[in-house]
Every structure is written in C-alpha cells, then in structure tokens.
C-alpha cells in the first residue's frame, strides 16, 4: 500500500505579487540603488555604480538610503525610485 503525502511548500499560485519582465538592456536607463544602511554598503554601491555606468551604459543612478536594514523600505523612500527603470536592493554588511 502506498502513502499519499502532501507538499508542504508555498504554492506560487497564492502569491500576492508578480515579477516584471527583465529589461533587454541597461543602456541609457535610470537605475536606483537602495542602500540598506549597513556598514560598508557605500563602498559596495560606489563600485556597483561605477560598473553600471562604465560597463552597461546606465545614464542615471538614483541613490537612496533605507533607515533600517531589517525592515521593509518605507513608502516615502520607495517613491523616490519612481523614475527608475530598475532598482537594485543591496545588502551591504
């Protein structure tokens, strides 16, 4: 006799959010960089910004700061990225 057992994992069909499609290219785009407020994140994001501009042709970079690394980004901070084509939420530590 076999055992019929149930899957314990999250069912994606219950998701309340969906992912957007990937940008075909970053050239000429505006990219947001979210600083999570941890030590050394500025060094990491300075380097990421340099790479985005020099190797991917990103035209504008918007740098914003999250006041608390362990909590969601506040609404007013998130609104600052409204003009961005993409945002990178970085984990400096």
């Amino acid at each position, binding site marked *: 006799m*076999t055992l019929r057992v*149930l899957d*314990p994992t*999250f069912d994606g069909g219950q*998701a*309340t959010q969906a992912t957007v499609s990937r940008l075909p290219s970053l050239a000429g785009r505006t990219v947001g960089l979210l600083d999570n407020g941890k030590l050394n994140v500025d060094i990491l994001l300075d380097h990421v910004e340099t790479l985005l501009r020099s190797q991917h042709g990103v035209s504008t970079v918007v740098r914003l700061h999250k006041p608390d690394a*362990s909590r969601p980004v506040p609404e007013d901070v998130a609104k600052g990225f409204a003009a961005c084509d993409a945002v990178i939420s970085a984990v400096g530590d």
Partner: protein
Amino acid sequence: MTQLRSPSYDLADIVAVNDLYHRRGWTDGLPILPPTEELVQACLDATGLAPSAVIGVESVRQRPITAEKVAINAVMAGCLPAYMPVVVAVIKAICQPEFNLHGSTASTGGSAQFIVVNGPIRQRIGLNATHNVLANHSRANACIGRAIRLILINVLGCLPGQLDRSTLGHPGKFSFCIAEDEEDSPWTPLAQQRGISAGMSAVTVMAGESPHQTMNEWTRDPEEIVETFAAEIRHNMLTYSIWAGNYALIVPKQLRDLIATAGWQRRDIQEYVYRSARVVRRDWATVGKKQIVNLGKGADQRFSALRSPDDLLVIAAGGPAGGFGAIIPPWLGSRSQAVTQIIETL
C-alpha cells in the same frame, strides 16, 4: 472533508517519504511523519479553518501562510491535532509587524522563535514547564516548536544559505517552546501580565538568541539572586549586542521561592534589572572591542538592556531543585518585539 489543494505524491513507505522530503530540503534534518491527507485533515479540523484560510502574511515578501500549509508542516513535525491552536496562535503572533519576521529570520544573527505558553491549554496538551524545560521531554513542546521551524523553511523559504543567512544559528531553531509553571508560581502568568484575561490561553513569542545559563545557590538575598541574571545580561550587551529590547529570564522554583519569601514581586525583578543591566561604552575594551569605545557619543556613553522594566519577560519555569536560571537575549534589540497572542480553541 474539505478539499486540500496541495500537490500530492504517492510513495512506497515512510522511508521513501523521508528520502524525498529530505532530498528536496523540506525538513530540518530530522525524520518527519508523512503528511497524509487523513492526518493533515485532522489537524486542519482542529483549527476550524478552511484550507485556504490565511493565518498570517509575511509582510516583506507579501507571502501568505495558509491553514493547509500550517497543518501539513505540523503533521510532519509530529503534532497532534490538539496542538494546532497553539501553532496557529504562534503564526499569528510572528506575522505582527512588530515581530519583524523577515528581518529576524533572514539575519546573520540567527535567532529562533522562543515560545511561552500560558493558560489551561498547557495541561490539556501536556506541555512541560518543569524538569529540563528548555530541552527534550514533552511531545507538545518539541513538536509545536518544530512545526514553526518547518513552516518557516517550507512556506517562507527560510533555508540556511538561502533566505536564512544565519552565521551560526542555535539549537533552539529545532524547537524552542516552553510552558510557564503557573501552578507553582508566586506571580501572575506572563500572558496575564501582558494584557490577556485570566483563564485564557495565550502564547508570547520573541526572536530569541540561545539561552545563557546562570547559577547562584549561595544567597537568599533577592537582590543578589537577580543581580546574577543582570550580570549575564550586561555580559551579553558587551559580547553580543548592545541594543535594548525584550530579554527573557527563566527563573526556576528554587530561586522563585527565595525571591518570593523575601517579599519581591515580579515587578521588583523587572525594575531591578532595568536599573542594573547597564553598561558604558568603555566597558567594550574589557571584551576585546576597544576599537569601538570612542565611536558614537564617546567612552562615557551609557546603554541600558531594557527600554523600560516592561521589556523584561520574567518566566516561571524549570525543575524544582537547583539555583540555575537563564537569560534569553533578543536577536537585535527592539528591532523585533515580543508579541502575545490569544490561543483560540474550538
């Protein structure tokens, strides 16, 4: 029987079930009980909820935790249906914004959900509050705590190295659930102190680091007894995290009796620790951290372990003999706060 929606697998036997579930990363490393439709339905029935009922939502990734998934993971953990009201209450508690579920479970700091159960349900389901209270013994303690871990792994994706970035973690991440010894305590139960009506069952949950055991069997002076706990908190502030928040004290019967005989109430313990568990920035030099002594507001900057006496969760638990106690430090100060939630039974 209501319709369960989760995908199912037909497997030869319990060994095959464990092989598949371990291989897919669906366990904590220990064997699981196969979550058959019958067992899952029995656990679901004990909640009185529909399978699709959302018990809580993890707010950062907006991920709902449904009654069906809670029941499946509870069965895997070994829970009896009678434990389900406690499991459901814990999920509700940790999904409150002040608990900061995402931060406290993803962090390198590696905390676990420390659960304290109060009220009549403790005795109905056989929760242990005495001998070896922080460790093995009762099925209810072990399986309720384990169910929460499996839900985090399977529903929220808290897999070590993936969403769970703990550097070390601690053994409480397998299970970290106790009852308070209300029948042998001089104090009002913890949940009552935190606003729950007498006679109701409730859970109090905090994102806790590993317990630090203390011992003082050489005094009857309540101040000296409590000072040993405060000293361990000060030590934790220096060696681990300076930030103020909920600390739990586990006070065993031997020490409770001495404290009560001397006329101290729970509030006296909270107020003493509030005054005593303080350090100054220069103290960091004594634990190998002199590099940060002159940062912030300088070497004289003062820090308190508690934002107020109410931050201290004083819990009556442990075996009858021995002057052993424990502090359970918060994961990261008040970034995650203890939540007390009523247990609803059918």
